[in-house]
């Protein structure tokens, strides 16, 4: 397992993307577009984690853990926010409805769900753990 701990501040999300894309490209046979998908999904999860820390002490950290199985990559994003219910995200009006333009937020979770093969949101003792799973070929020799 490899772990990256960042301050819960927006400027560090780019560092998490580098962490994920370099591990994905050097350690596994993963097509470029799948690396992009994983990078975006993890980035969205980190953005939510940092958002969950707004109003809390800035010394709080977000921890990103990278783990590998025979046929899968697992990235978890651990925050110390107050937690949330992913099923409570409001539905947007249809894209053809002019009212759709009143909604700028709420696209992160649907993006995560469609980009990775499995996603799990779990409350932890301290906050929330979001685990993203992507199936892939065996580890590089």
């Amino acid at each position, binding site marked *: 397992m490899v772990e990256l701990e960042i301050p819960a501040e927006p400027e560090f999300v780019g560092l998490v993307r580098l962490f994920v894309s370099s591990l994905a490209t050097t350690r596994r046979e993963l097509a470029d577009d799948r690396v992009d998908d994983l*990078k975006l999904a993890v980035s969205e999860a980190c*953005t939510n984690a940092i958002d969950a820390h707004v109003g809390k002490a800035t010394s709080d950290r977000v921890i990103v853990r990278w783990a590998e199985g025979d046929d899968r990559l697992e990235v978890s994003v651990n925050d110390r926010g107050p937690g949330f219910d992913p099923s409570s995200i409001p539905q947007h009006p249809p894209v053809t409805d002019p009212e759709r*333009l009143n909604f700028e937020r709420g*696209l992160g979770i*649907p993006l995560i769900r*469609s980009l990775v093969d499995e996603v799990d949101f779990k409350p932890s003792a301290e906050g929330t753990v979001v685990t993203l799973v992507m199936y892939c070929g065996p580890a590089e020799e």
Partner: protein
Amino acid sequence: MDLGLEVEERNGHTVLAVKGEVDVYTAPRLRERLVELVTEGKRNIVVDLEGVDFLDSTGLGVLVGGLKRLRSNDGEMSLVSTQSRILKVFEITGLTKVFSIHDSVDAATAS
């Protein structure tokens, strides 16, 4: 992380060329620039995303907000992108039906 934001006038349109990564850290700068352009009276804005390496939901939100601001001022905004990794984000979220997306600045500014 730098976000490039260059503005030029072309064929009655204001072209905002964005370069770099648009995420939770940099998207506020894109939002500010779009608000400034509308405040300056620009009404036909083309956002050129060809130089964008990464775009997340925060960036999409800023573009949706920009389009709303323009339409409520009798303006219009269109986008330029040919990169599959960027177009995919619009496709997944259904926003390809909200934005008019062109494959070049020439095409976006032709009308």
